[in-house]
C-alpha cells in the first residue's frame, strides 16, 4: 500500500454479512447521493480511516474501518455526541443479554 512492500493480492469474491451491507447503505445515505441531506463526504471517510492508529488499521476488517470512520465523522460534525453514542452502546449491549 502507498508504494510500500505488501503481501500477495488475493483476488477472491467476498460474501458480505448483513451488518456490512448496512454500513455500506449508511454511507450512501449520509453522503446524500440519493437526494437526502449530505452529512458527510467520501473524503471525510478516507481521512478518518487514515487517522486510525496503524495497529487498529491492521486489526480491523474493511467495514469495521468504515463504521469507525463514519462514527468519528458524525461526532466531529456534531450529528451525534460521544455521550449519546456511549449510552446507546450500553443499551444495545444489555439488549443482547450478555
Amino acid at each position, binding site marked *: 500500500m502507498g*508504494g510500500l512492500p505488501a503481501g500477495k493480492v488475493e483476488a477472491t469474491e467476498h460474501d458480505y454479512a448483513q451488518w456490512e451491507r448496512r454500513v455500506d447503505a449508511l454511507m450512501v445515505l449520509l453522503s446524500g447521493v440519493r437526494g437526502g441531506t449530505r452529512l458527510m463526504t467520501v*473524503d*471525510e471517510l478516507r481521512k478518518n480511516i*487514515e487517522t486510525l492508529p496503524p495497529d487498529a488499521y491492521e486489526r480491523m476488517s474493511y467495514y469495521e474501518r468504515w463504521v469507525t470512520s463514519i462514527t468519528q465523522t458524525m461526532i466531529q460534525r456534531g450529528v451525534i455526541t460521544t455521550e449519546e453514542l456511549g449510552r446507546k452502546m450500553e443499551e444495545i449491549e444489555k439488549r443482547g443479554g450478555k
Partner: protein
Amino acid sequence: MAASEMSARFRPGDRVRVRKAYPLGHIRTPFYIRGHSGVVERLCGSFGNPEELAQMRSGEPKQPLYRVRFLQKDVWPGYRGDARDVLEVEIFQHWLE
C-alpha cells in the same frame, strides 16, 4: 449560485513536476510520486478539493484534475522492467508546477 472553479493551467503534453511536500491532512497525491516529473496526458475535469472536503468545508473552488504520465524507471529505484513502461497518476493542479 454557480460553483467556483480554478482555470486549467496545463495542457496535454506539458511537462510538470509534482510538489515535494508532506503536510498533514488528507491528501490524494501519493507519497511515492511527490517530487517526480511527468507529462500531462489529459485533463480529467474539475472536482471539489478533497483536502478541503475532508475537513467539512465546501471544496471550492474546484480544482482541475490531470492524468499525468511518468516513466516507471524514473519512479522506482532499480526498476528492472521495460524502460518505456509508464505509470499514470491523477493529480490535482495545486500539486503540480
